[in-house]
C-alpha cells in the first residue's frame, strides 16, 4: 500500500523534471500535508480520528493507485512508520488498485468475511505489495471498534529490504463494509514510539454521523 505509492512517486519525479512548466520543487509537488491535532476525517470522510500529535497525510494519486476508502499517514516517513485508515470498504472492492493482469494480487474484500479472513487478506497485501518474505501472526483477539464488535490483529514481517517490521490492526465489518486502522512500523524503536498515537486514535475513532 504505502510502498507502492513510494514507487509511484519515484516514477513521477522524472515527469516533473521534464515538465515545461518548471514544476518540480518539493513544495508544489508535495507528497504530504500536515495533519493537526484535532478531529480529522479520513478515507472517504466517513471516519473521524483525533491524532495526539501532528502526523503527515500522504497525498493520494487518484486514477493511479489509490482507493478512496484508504488513506495513509506517516510520522517519520513510510519506510519507518505509517498508519493506514480504511473507512468503509464495500464488498467486492480491493484495498489497493491493481491490474487484472497482475500475476500476484491482493484478495478482494467481501462483506461476509470473518476476522481471520480479513487478516489473511492483509497478510497477502503485505506479501504481494510490501514484499514481505516472512509474515508472522502474533495475536488475533476480539476488540471493540467504533462501538461494534471487531478484532485486534498483531503481526510482524521481514521485508525484502531485510528490515523487520511490526504492526497492529484494529477493525470491524459494519453493515457489510470494512472499517480498519492499521499501524505498521520498523520493529525496533519506531513501533513502540508511535503505538500510543495509534491506540489513542483507534480508541476514540468514530463514524461520521
Amino acid at each position, binding site marked *: 500500500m504505502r510502498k507502492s505509492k513510494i514507487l509511484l512517486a519515484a516514477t513521477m519525479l522524472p515527469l516533473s523534471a521534464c515538465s515545461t512548466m518548471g514544476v518540480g520543487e518539493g513544495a508544489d509537488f508535495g507528497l504530504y500535508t500536515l495533519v493537526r491535532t484535532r478531529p480529522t476525517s479520513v478515507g472517504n470522510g466517513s471516519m473521524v480520528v483525533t491524532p495526539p500529535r501532528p502526523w503527515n497525510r500522504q497525498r493520494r494519486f487518484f486514477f493511479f493507485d489509490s482507493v478512496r476508502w484508504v488513506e495513509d499517514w506517516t510520522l517519520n516517513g513510510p519506510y519507518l512508520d505509517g498508519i493506514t485508515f480504511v473507512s468503509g470498504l464495500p464488498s467486492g472492492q480491493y484495498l489497493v488498485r491493481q491490474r*487484472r*493482469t*497482475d*500475476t*500476484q*494480487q*491482493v*484478495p*478482494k474484500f*467481501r462483506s*461476509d468475511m*470473518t*476476522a*481471520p*479472513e480479513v*487478516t*489473511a487478506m492483509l*497478510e*497477502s497485501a503485505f*506479501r*504481494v505489495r510490501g*514484499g514481505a*518474505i*516472512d*509474515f*508472522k*501472526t*502474533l*495475536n*488475533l*483477539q*476480539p476488540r471493540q471498534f467504533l462501538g461494534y464488535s471487531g*478484532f485486534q490483529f*498483531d503481526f510482524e514481517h*521481514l521485508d*525484502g*529490504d*531485510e528490515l523487520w517490521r511490526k504492526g497492529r490492526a484494529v477493525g470491524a465489518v459494519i453493515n457489510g463494509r470494512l472499517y480498519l486502522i492499521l499501524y505498521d512500523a520498523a520493529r525496533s524503536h519506531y513501533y513502540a514510539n508511535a503505538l500510543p498515537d495509534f491506540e489513542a486514535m483507534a480508541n476514540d475513532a468514530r463514524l461520521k454521523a
Partner: protein
Amino acid sequence: MCVRCEISRRSLLIGGGAAAASLTTGVAEARVRPQDMVSLIGPGYRPTDTDEKGLWQLMDRAEEEIAGSNLLIKDPGLVSYLQDIIGRVGGPAAKDMRIYLAHVPDFNAMMFPSGFAVVFTGLLLRMRNEAQFAGVIAHEGAHFLRRHMIRSWRDMKRKSDLFAIGALAAGIGGAGAGVYLGDYVQLAQLATILSLFKDSREMEAEADAMGAKLIAEAGYPPMEMSTVWQQLIGELNASARYRRKRRERGSLFDTHPSPEARMADLKLDAQEMTVPGRIYDDRRARYLKMIGPIRPMLLEDQVKLNDPGGSQYLLNTLALDGWNGLLRYYEGEVWRLRNRAGDDARAAQSYAVAVAYPDAPPEAWRWHGLSLMKEGRSVEGKSALSRYLQLKPTAPDAPFIRQMIG
C-alpha cells in the same frame, strides 16, 4: 547464469516466436554430447589472469554481502544437505563451490563466476525429488566448470562497445561494493547482470549436457533434468494464462533454443547417459525428509501471493507423487484467496478433504471449521475449531477463535 533468466528469456519462443527465432538464427546447431563435456578447471581453482582476478575480487565482495543477509536460511542441517548435493554433482570443484539458500518465494538459482551459488527457497518447493534439485545445481555448476562466465565476459569485451562494458562493470561493481541491500528484487537484478554473461545457446547446451552427465554419474536418473524444465515452464505458462496474458518476455535478443528443442536434447542426453543395468535413485524419500520441516512454510510463501494459476499448477505437480493433507489444505487456500463466486464452496471442500488425512496441518481444521460456520453448520464448525485449538493450543488467534466457539 541463472535459471529464471534463462526461462524468461526463452519465453517469446513459445508459439509464434519460435518460428521467428529459428528464422533469425537460421542454422541448426549440432547437439552438444554429454560425453564430450569435461571440466575445464581442477580442484582448488584460482584465477591467474588479471581480468579474471578482478572479476573474482568483485564477486568475493558480493558473496560477503550475500552471506551476511538476514534473508538467508541458515538452518545448519538443511544447508549442509544442500552443500552435500553440490558435493555430489560438482565434479572437480565439488569441494570448492558454496551454496546459499535465500528465503525468497520465487524459483531461481544462480551461479556466480567465483563458484558460489544462491538458491531461492521457491526452487526447493518446486522440486519433487533430490534428483531434480541436483539437476538444477549440476546445470549451474557446469557453467562454473566450463568457465562460461569468464569466457562470455571476454567475448563481450571483444564484441561490445565501451559503453556497454562500462555499464556492465558498474553494475557488477555496484553489486560488489555494497549497493546490494538484500532486497530480493535487487538480488534478481544481480541475476540479470549475471545473465549478461551468457546468452549463448552453446553455453546453455553445454551446461545441460554436462549437468545430465554429472547427475547420471552421481546415480540420479538423468531424465529428471528435462522434467524440471518442463515443470518450470509449465508453471509460468499456467500463471500467465490464468491472468489472460502472454508469459512475460525477457530480453530482446533471445538466442536460446526453443523449449521443445531443448527438451528433446535433454531427453537424448538422458538416454545416452543411462547405463543399462545400473540402478538410479531419485532420492525422493531423503529429499522429502530434509525439506519436510520447511515445506509448510514454502507452500505458505507461495500460496499467500495469490497467483492462482501458478499455485494450482504447482500443487498439481507436487501431487503427482500423491495428494496429502498439506497439499489439499493449500489447494483450499488457493481457492479461498482467489475469492471468486463459488470459490468458498471449493475451498470448503478442499479443507474437508484435507482434515481426513493424518498429516493435515492444524490450520486445515481452523478453515474447515470457519467454512462450516459460514455454511450455517455451526455445531460441526465449532467442533472443528475446537479440534484446531486442541492441536495448536498456543495458536496466536486462539483468543478470537475461542470467542467464535462461544
